[in-house]
């Protein structure tokens, strides 16, 4: 199975380990992974700020890089959702194909690879921050507002990891306040939301905040570092890819 890896810009620049873990994990699970070298960004930062019309070149570049693959996988719910909803390159057919074949990592593992077990170990208490775009946009998990049976693709995968336990948060799907350019345009609220989200995790003695969107994690990590918190953030790819025998500490 030929899979193209889409690494969002801030992961590429600031969290390369997340992309490396995603790549290794997919390869471990038998995928042939291609990383198109001229990729940049999904265009979301512009579009969410009201400048969708400026993201045309970005869209075309995306299509040039990702056309013709069976699947495109990305370790970000938010960027995946944006492509799914808003990618409109000049090449219509290719754009449509991409929109229909792009998957967020845990979605891909669950729905396409149908992963039932994983060889991974992460003996820690973690809190799951199910980012809004992944959850409410991609429907990776049941939303607390809707009357329906609970499920969570991400949680199901995490439960396959040896030694890991998931704490129960007071507000299971409250937004962390990152919100793209919101994080600087509405700095006061953004930070307050982040602090409250972190408090929910510390209150339940989580050692890690785990999520499928690096942008949210980066925001909360920034606040935690400033607070001098001992809690850390981890992307699910790093956990699902963590070896049974550690390679030398986390």
């Amino acid at each position, binding site marked *: 199975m030929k899979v193209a890896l889409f690494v969002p*810009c801030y992961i590429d620049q600031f969290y390369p380990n997340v992309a490396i873990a995603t790549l290794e994990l997919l390869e471990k699970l038998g995928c042939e992974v291609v990383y198109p070298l001229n990729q940049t960004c999904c265009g979301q930062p512009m579009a969410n700020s009201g400048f969708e019309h400026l993201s045309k070149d970005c869209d075309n570049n995306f299509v040039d890089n990702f056309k013709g693959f069976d699947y495109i996988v990305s370790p970000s719910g938010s960027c995946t959702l944006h492509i799914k909803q808003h990618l409109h390159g000049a090449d219509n057919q290719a754009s449509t194909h991409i929109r229909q074949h792009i998957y967020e990592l845990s979605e891909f593992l669950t729905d396409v690879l149908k992963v039932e077990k994983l060889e991974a170990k992460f003996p820690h208490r973690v809190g799951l921050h199910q980012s809004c775009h992944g959850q409410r946009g991609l429907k990776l998990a049941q939303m607390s507002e809707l009357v329906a049976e609970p499920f969570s693709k991400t949680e199901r995968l995490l439960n396959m990891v040896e030694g890991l336990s998931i704490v129960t948060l007071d507000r299971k799907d409250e937004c962390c306040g990152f919100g793209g350019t919101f994080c600087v345009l509405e700095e006061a609220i953004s930070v307050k939301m982040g602090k409250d989200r972190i408090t929910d995790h510390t209150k339940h003695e989580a050692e890690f905040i785990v999520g499928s969107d690096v942008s949210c994690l980066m925001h909360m990590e920034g606040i935690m570092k400033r607070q001098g918190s001992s809690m850390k953030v981890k992307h699910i790819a790093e956990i699902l890819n963590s070896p049974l025998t550690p390679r030398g500490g986390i």
Partner: protein
Amino acid sequence: MKTFIDHATASTVFNKDEAHVNWHDETLWFVRSKRDKAVFQIPEWEQLREAGSQIKNHVLSNMHDYLVAFEKKATENGITIHWAADAKEHNEIVYKIIADTAPQPPEGELKSDSKTPPLGVGGLRMVKSKSMLTEECHLNEFLKEKGVEVIDSDLGERIVQMREEPPSHIVLPAIHLKKSDVGETFHKHLGTEKGATDPQYLTEAARQHLRDTFLTRKVALTGVNFAIAETGGFVVCTNEGNADMGVHLADVHIACMGFEKIIPKVEHLGVFLRLLARSATGQPITTFSSHFHKPREGQKMHIVIVDNGRTKQLGRPDFRNSLKCIRCAACLNTCPVYRRSGGHSYHTAIAGPIGSILAPNLDMAQNADLPFASTLCGSCSNVCPVKIDIHDQLYKWRQVLVQEGHVPTVKKLGIQSMASVLSSPIFYRTAGKLGRFLMKNTPFVTNNNLNVWYQQRDMPDVPKESFREWFIREKGKK
């Protein structure tokens, strides 16, 4: 005109008192949790929402016919119908009804030289229960200038009215205040003991004060929750019974409604009354759901049907379904931004997510900041009992506001350069490398007060290479 402070600035001020923000957030979260408990008891909740949504969609597509049918029936029932194109016309109609009802022509008594006449002279007095429409139209200010004394009979609204503040929430108007604030206000206006904070004591004082109002006012104004085309009747929902108290004791009942309040049939109340209170407060139904059909003997009844921008919104394909709103406030209670910024930061009669998609329709320049006061988390759309795609509309308003030139130039330039960086692979890689180089070697460039991110958050650690660089090094070898 009030001076205009944008949402981000007002929120920064609100967040100076973190303990109060926590209280505000937790109180509204408690209401959201009550809503969750109530709706999870109804297995068919999602179907009920779908039904509510479909009925409202149908009404929006047949608005003209239903309004005409409603007018006909209501008129047959002896109700006088007035049509108001905008807020000004609405206010003038209401004033005229009050003036016509006043025992003596007010002119005789208005000899005072001061610009604003004394309130209530010549019987120019009215008691009013909750109506967000009259807030939208700034009716109280208008009537005050005309010398009409208006007393709001909803407890929360009465409190903010005494403080000369607008409501901060469409269902819980005084939710931004602490008990001590209310105590102080009552001390000043109702003569309660200084420093009193006991809710029982304060409520009793308000009750006595309002009782006197109910007994002496000849004109009572109410809002309308649902107007039924089939019967020409309407329903007003309250928890305090204040709407009924007002109108039962008055000679004239004025009911004001935005035209979107119309529903086709009585049986549809079986959907909306179930949706409304559960979504609003987690109650199965409001304590009072009062049905009005015709004036009682000797009473006059008026309905003012208001457009005030609604036709325009109905004509915007992307935003028309915001008119499905039944004003339950569930989207405010669930909104993580609203809970932490308070209603006044939205500088518009209707705060929160729904207010942010309604307000730009009325004035884009004034409300351009509101669609940006959201992380687009989507919780609002999920709780909305009539399934308005609120967060998608926030996104769409952003596009419209930018296209229409309502976003400050600085931001525009920043986004434009971002767009050119991110659409060019080579430019992007150079910029990324440069950015990481600067962050690592000259942290003061990014770690300073001009960098808004850094004020309360650290920057991410800088890796020595990007993923792409790692990939080429590792995999390029093969």
